[in-house]
């Protein structure tokens, strides 16, 4: 396998993208019509790429496992999307967004990619507004912004607590417009099960029609994986039930390197687990940290109700530890701080695995402002709270409703109880600057790739990256590859590579059905999740990771000998779908532990207990670990590590501090 080459353009950081874009080889319009591109996934990255490529004239086939592209999990993103517009006149700039993102990622992301992301961030907002995405506005009619973690400017655009929904519906409408014009062929309820590689290049996929169970062959000049992240390896996460790693993992097994698999984001503000029956966790948007203050009692094992604990007996530990950023420290820092307090015995609620997120002070403050607007001067506390509640409701109404529904408690009256949960994976398929994986013609976009967030993603940056990749990056960079592929005819579907790929997909499905063991897919998934959370979760250590690897290997054996999948493969069979996804999660879980074990440092979301400062902060080792780990699949669940050195030429690498 050749040396890893990230293909970062020469020149000044600020000119790289502009220059590359103007010098990128083009494909002329008549040739575009005969080029077919396969897009797997229809979330922000997939829908925006499919729509844009079709607008440019390419023939596009787009696949999603949901019943409609509008249901991709991007829909559930709540808080917002960052852009360096500087509409608030608070000193924001492309450089500042770039800097915040690199620092937020704990200096483990590629400078050139992140700078490009910051550059195109402003175009995204323009594009979405033009599509009719109803982002929040001020009374003057202009767009509103709010703050998110890890920054000191207000650059986050939003649509109440439903920003992902509105952005995705924008991209979905652009996609459906192309479907209506016949330029995109949409395959819903289809799951990609194999990448077809011919002479080293990606030339198609095998997809299973989930309605009929039929395996279908689809050829294309390039394949784009926009299939999201792999947080569900932990079983409990904020991901949708169907979110999975299968498309990315099959690509990995066909030669695409997997980058930084151990970088997982644990989101600090989620609704705590209520019992064994729990199937998923629900996020409470980071935007709540704008107006909520996080605290625990100062006294250990305090059983009093929150309202009975006086102000001076509350420990606002984030404000205490990080006075400069307070409640708006990045997610990894906030999550670890919550774990630290709970582990030390200060947790609240029945399980003691929760901290308070309290809106009282800001509700009152907003109420006072509202009272003034209504010409009520010197309002009493009750009036303030009443008026303030209206403001909070407008800002976060749907989140408060969701919380009340799940917990049975009224968050307007009581502080929320929250605890960290798996939310996002920074790792993913390794890609070069053009978003191409190590398999020529195979691309990865959005959360499915590893590229822009380093070891920790800042809030409101996932939507930005998904749409940047799909609308503004890939449609340009893919020209470099396709312009050289014009002479290649589409691969006929009876080509041996198709036959072989289909046979291997079929063999796995048949295997699942033939085991006829005693345990359901969920049984194994829950076990895997527990191993991952205990051994490769918020804090990791050498001993635990080694145990984790052994336990996962054992679980894999049990899975393949004792699995029970009812039904058949020629019908709608959700248990069979889940079996395929969990089989891949088990293999991935082992690689995540290996990657975490290899990285003898703490950085961002990867916290190795052996490597921390005296104050308990992550301690990086830039001398030895300033690289991207890119794992190559060597067959039979074995992997070989390759390294891409990270060079920081425009930013001074420093100990990350939010104090």
């Amino acid at each position, binding site marked *: 396998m050749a040396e890893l080459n990230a293909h970062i353009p020469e020149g000044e950081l600020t000119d790289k993208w502009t220059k590359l874009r103007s010098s990128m080889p083009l494909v002329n319009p008549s040739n575009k019509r005969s080029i077919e591109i396969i897009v797997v996934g229809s979330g922000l990255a997939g829908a925006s790429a499919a729509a844009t490529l079709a607008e440019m004239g390419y023939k596009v086939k787009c696949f999603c496992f949901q019943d409609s592209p509008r249901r991709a999990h991007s829909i*559930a993103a709540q808080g917002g999307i960052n852009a360096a517009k500087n509409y608030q006149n608070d000193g924001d700039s492309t450089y500042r967004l770039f800097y915040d993102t690199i620092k937020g990622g704990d200096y483990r992301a590629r400078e050139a990619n992140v700078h490009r992301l910051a550059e195109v961030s402003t175009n995204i907002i323009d594009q979405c507004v033009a599509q009719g995405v109803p982002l929040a506005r001020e009374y003057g009619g202009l767009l509103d912004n709010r703050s998110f973690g890890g920054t000191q400017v207000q650059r986050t655009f939003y649509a109440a607590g439903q920003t992902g929904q509105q952005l995705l519906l924008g991209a979905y409408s652009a996609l459906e417009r192309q479907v209506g014009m016949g330029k995109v062929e949409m395959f819903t309820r289809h799951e990609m099960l194999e990448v077809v590689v011919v002479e080293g290049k990606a030339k198609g996929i095998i997809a299973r029609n989930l309605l009929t169970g039929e395996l279908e062959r689809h050829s294309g000049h390039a394949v784009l994986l926009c299939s999201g992240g792999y947080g569900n390896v932990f079983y409990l996460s904020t991901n949708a039930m169907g979110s999975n790693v299968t498309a990315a993992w099959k690509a990995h097994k066909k030669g695409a390197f997997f980058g930084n698999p151990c970088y997982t984001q644990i989101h600090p503000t989620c609704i705590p687990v209520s019992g064994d029956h729990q199937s998923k966790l629900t996020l409470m948007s980071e935007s709540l940290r704008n107006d909520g203050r996080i605290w625990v009692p100062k006294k250990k094992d305090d059983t009093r109700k929150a309202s009975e604990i006086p102000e001076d007996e509350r420990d606002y530990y984030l404000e205490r530890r990080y006075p400069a950023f307070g409640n708006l420290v990045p997610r990894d820092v906030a999550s670890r701080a919550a774990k630290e307090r709970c582990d030390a015995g200060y947790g609240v609620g029945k399980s003691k695995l929760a901290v308070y997120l309290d809106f009282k002070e800001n509700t009152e403050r907003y109420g006072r402002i509202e009272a003034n607007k209504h010409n009520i001067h010197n309002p009493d506390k009750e009036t303030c709270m009443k008026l303030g509640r209206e403001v909070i409701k407008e800002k976060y109404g749907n989140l408060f409703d969701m919380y009340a529904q799940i917990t049975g408690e009224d968050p307007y009256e009581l502080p929320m109880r929250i605890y960290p949960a798996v939310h996002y994976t920074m790792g993913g398929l390794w890609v070069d600057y053009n978003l191409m994986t190590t398999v020529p013609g195979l691309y990865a976009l959005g959360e499915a790739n590893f590229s822009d967030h380093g070891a920790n993603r800042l809030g409101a940056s996932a939507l930005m990256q998904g749409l940047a990749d799909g609308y503004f990056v890939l449609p340009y960079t893919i020209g470099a590859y396709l312009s050289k592929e014009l002479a290649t005819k589409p691969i006929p579907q009876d080509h041996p590579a198709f036959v072989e790929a289909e046979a291997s997909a079929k063999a796995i499905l048949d295997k699942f059905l033939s085991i006829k063991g005693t345990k359901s897919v969920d049984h194994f998934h829950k076990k895997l999740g527990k191993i991952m959370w205990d051994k490769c979760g918020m804090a990791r250590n050498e001993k635990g990771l080694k145990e984790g690897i052994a336990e996962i290997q054992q679980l894999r054996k049990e899975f393949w000998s004792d699995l029970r999948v009812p039904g058949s493969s020629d019908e709608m069979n959700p248990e069979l779908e889940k079996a395929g996804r969990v089989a891949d999660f088990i293999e991935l879980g082992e690689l995540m532990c290996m990657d975490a074990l290899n990285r003898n440092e703490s950085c961002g979301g990867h916290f190795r207990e052996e490597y921390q400062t005296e104050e308990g902060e992550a301690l990086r080792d830039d001398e030895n670990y300033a690289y991207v780990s890119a794992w190559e699949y060597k067959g039979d669940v074995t992997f070989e590590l390759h390294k891409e050195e990270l060079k920081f030429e425009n930013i001074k690498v420093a100990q990350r501090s939010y104090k």
Partner: protein
Amino acid sequence: MSTGNMNLTLKIWRQKNNKAKGGLVDYKISEVSPDMSFLEMFDVLNEDLVAKGEEPVVFDHDCREGICGACSMFIDGRPHGPKEGITTCQLHMRSFNDGDTIVVEPWRAKAFPVIKDLMVDRTAFDRIIASGGFISVNTGNAQDANNLPIPKVQADSAFEAAACIGCGACVATCKNASAMLFVSAKVSQLAQLPQGQPERYRRVQSMVAQMDAEGFGNCTNTGACEAECPKGISLENIARMNRDFYSAKFVSEESI
């Protein structure tokens, strides 16, 4: 494995595929916790069925936080169950009582054929959006976002219409299986925004034509759709759509 103390009888619609005849089948489930969601209760039931060597109940679901619009159960005669303003995945067992019998059926509408058990085909909604539910703006054609101020009241009203999750509860509850609330939400979102004006009258005509072609029924203003919508999409959108539709047909120069 569940930790609660509720015992329930479920009458669930089972149907092998879209050609087979379906019917209600009784299931007993015990030790249900009030903290479980309705779908988690189904997870427990399905685990039991798999353990017994039977086929689990097939149903659509994904995000389980009320935003993707996948879940679609008709519970005791109401889409998404007895509570207002939520989807099935947000319904918790504390909304039921020990000893209850609960009837669970799929969405029923000619335009939403049953696929299997509680799963239906809602692709008609995608085809309606593809017929005109968009603003024709290619990537890269946009001006600076703040060059187009939009009054907050108007923007908020467009947002409220845009909150539709495309679940189809409106169709399922309507005695005519009409899709007017769904279609009008998109028409109304875009008609209230300046960006949506150039295609305003084309859009409403195309979308209504596609809605009719899909076999959805007519609107007779009973208002059940609004009452059952988990996102509170307002009937005003239907009025707005009708206004635009008639303007397009009788006044506008651009009828299609």
